[in-house]
């Protein structure tokens, strides 16, 4: 039997298609482990950010309190949180073997993600315009690295999901690509988790001072 070509119906479609075969299970577990590793990666970035927050050369001007604009951050947060929900919808439809709806919800997820990324790029450009650049202080380096790494993850996620949607557009759901969609959604939620810490630790705590 062939994972790629076996045709399922909603009745025969397994309840947990993302881990219905050994390969799928491997990917599923492997991806979770990868996220476990990412936790430490971001923890280290957060740690460095916290240690270097507001530290720069003598008389440097930009601090967390003078810099951050919560309105933008709120917009970004809402975009990303919503995109998390839309990807939940996509997975819901995947489990129901409704390929079309899944594709649609995944596309919406990607659009929201793109929106988020655009606001972030705007924010960075704005900071650079203010003279707050990657090299202007240790604080700046740490800030851009932490937030930028998250942004990079979003960008990678967007490329990933775009490829998935495009590649499978004509093929429909099967046990081969179901895992891929599912792991993408895990990845996307994880990005959201990281963002929760970013808006809390970087922006909100930054404003509190």
């Amino acid at each position, binding site marked *: 039997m*062939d*994972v*790629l070509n076996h045709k399922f119906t909603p009745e025969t479609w397994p309840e947990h298609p993302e881990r219905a075969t*050994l390969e799928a*299970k*491997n990917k599923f*577990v*492997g991806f979770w*482990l*990868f996220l*476990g*590793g*990412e936790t*430490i*990666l971001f923890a*280290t*970035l957060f740690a*460095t950010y916290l*240690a*270097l927050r507001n*530290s*720069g*050369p003598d008389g*440097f001007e930009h601090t967390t309190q003078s810099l951050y604009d919560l309105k933008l951050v709120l917009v970004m947060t809402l975009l990303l949180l919503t995109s998390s929900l839309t990807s939940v919808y996509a997975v819901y439809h995947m489990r129901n073997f409704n390929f079309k709806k899944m594709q649609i919800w995944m596309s919406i997820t990607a659009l929201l993600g793109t929106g988020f990324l655009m606001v972030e790029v705007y924010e960075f450009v704005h900071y650079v315009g203010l003279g707050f650049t*990657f*090299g*202007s*202080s*240790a*604080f*700046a*380096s*740490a800030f851009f*690295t932490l937030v930028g790494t998250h942004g990079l993850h979003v960008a990678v996620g967007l490329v*990933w999901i775009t*490829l998935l949607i495009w*590649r499978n557009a004509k093929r429909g759901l099967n046990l*081969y690509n179901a895992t891929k969609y599912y792991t993408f959604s895990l990845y996307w939620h994880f990005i959201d988790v990281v963002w929760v810490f970013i808006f809390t630790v970087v922006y909100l705590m930054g404003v509190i001072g």
Partner: protein
Amino acid sequence: MSSVAQKKGFGAAVWDWMTTVDHKKIGILYLLGGAFFFVLGGIEALFIRWQLLTPQNDFVTAGMFNDLITMHGTTMIFLAAMPILFGFMNAIVPLQIGARDVAFPFINSLGFWMFMLGGIFLNLSWLFGEVPDAGWTSYASLSLVSPGHGIDFYALGLQIAGAGTLMAGINFLVTIINMRAPGMTYMRMPLFTWTTFIASAMILFAFPPLTVGLFFLTFDRMFGGQFFNHLMGGNTIIWEHIFWIFGHPEVYILILPAFGIFSEIFSTFARKRLFGYPSMVFATVLIGFLGFMVWAHHMFTVGLGPTANAIFAVATMAIAVPTGVKIFNWLLTMWGGSIKVTTPMLYALGFIPSFVMGGVTGVMQGSAPLDYQLHDSYFIVAHFHYVIVGGVVLAILAGTHYWWPKMFGTMLNETLGKITFVFFFIGFHMTFLIQHWLGFWGMPRRVWTYMPNQGWDLANMISTIGAISMGIGVIILVFNAIMATIKNERVGNDPWGDGRTLEWAIPSPPPFYNFPQTPLVRGLDSVWLEKMDGNESGFLPAEPVKDIHMPYGSILPFIMTLGLFIAGFGAMFRLEHAWGLPVLVGGLVVTFFAMAARSVRDDLGFYVTKEEVLQTEKEIAQRGHN
């Protein structure tokens, strides 16, 4: 495609190895790659010792000496010890758990190439004449001001190799979690598999900080970052923390698999079940966990304050307890057994006193106020070579002799093996025992020369002579390996006669699908159990012979890595050469396209039919008979 023994030309053979995703072949690649770097690192060590033979020696310059120690430490840890252990893990763990392959064959191959090309990248620094020179720890204040591209080679090379290691770690974890044969519960897994599991988990959590730290270093040096530049608000202590948050777990990543290897060897050659198996497992897990709580013991003299020092001191000492449990369990495995002193066993026997000596000096260093004296002195050099050479390297040598027949189908010569041991073991103690006193007598480490009349002259000479003896041992080993390959006397499933774990139930080397039928496991030491129950083959199938699914080989892992390798050079020369930036981008594009190709093309593997399996088994059986 699927037939086993095709006659191939040289080019085809190279292509075969470059595209292989077979865990056994990748294991051999790791072993050979690691051995190459071990010899390289060993030659560097000999240069170090030769320079220190006499006071005010001028065999190498001061700058060259720093290159040598940095590359020696980095090469040995990242490119020799770890990859060789990965070689054994790859070759053996799937066999021990009764699996046909690892969970991610493609990623396995990718991990190997990342290690190999990362290591080559690092070592190309010798050709450029700009070699990393800030020690393997690369402390930030020094590594930021180090001129030339030396440290860039370090940061980028390790970044590539480190990513490969992380992949290998995840791969082993998933393999062990998901691919165990029926009946192979966690508490029936051989100890080598267990230690692989825990070491891989440690890799998963220890390497991301290294990635981040190297990223900071790269950006500080090449792209205007300010993480460690204290004039811009940066802080060098952050590097020290990040490095040791990675670095301390790293040393347990090295020693745990070594413990695993010795556990196998002790019970095999004492013909006895491992004493206290559950506590062995528990101790392994505990060491793995505690390993993350003690990193600051490398930083006692940094000035963290008495409270931090006291906490980390006590945490450090705690590790002595689970390690002691292991030591005594091994002793009691031998106790009441039937000990046969083969070459692997000889190494295992050499390991116990050597490692205990290294371990207890570790505990001494764990006492912060005492470490104020010992830190950065030759006492430290003695400590870690006692645990690394007396633990990890002896395990590697033991494992090489023990599993050589399983990996290559021929035995290494036992007599030569024992001669190697004698030279290596005596040389090892001669080199490093005296270094404890050098430390007490006030000799700092990482000194390229020393003035006469400080009381260090004779001791250094003894130490150097010992190193030469180790070198002789290694040369004999290499000779032994070459001779065994030339003679090529084939061996059966269990050439040692006392094999206990599943790898000894199948041919040496195993066919590419490992097990014609998935085995059924009824307890710890599966093969031994079956044999004791009168099943001579030591093997109990869990299923009838069926078609076997296998993955396709692929060149993409190599191409992906090559892209990164090229990009590394681009990044490094971006500022001084016009071609830098295009090469950087070009390399990344290559990698990216290889990745896209991988994700867009379906890779479903192929089936070996039942008939082919039976045919292959028959051929192997016949080969065994003549």
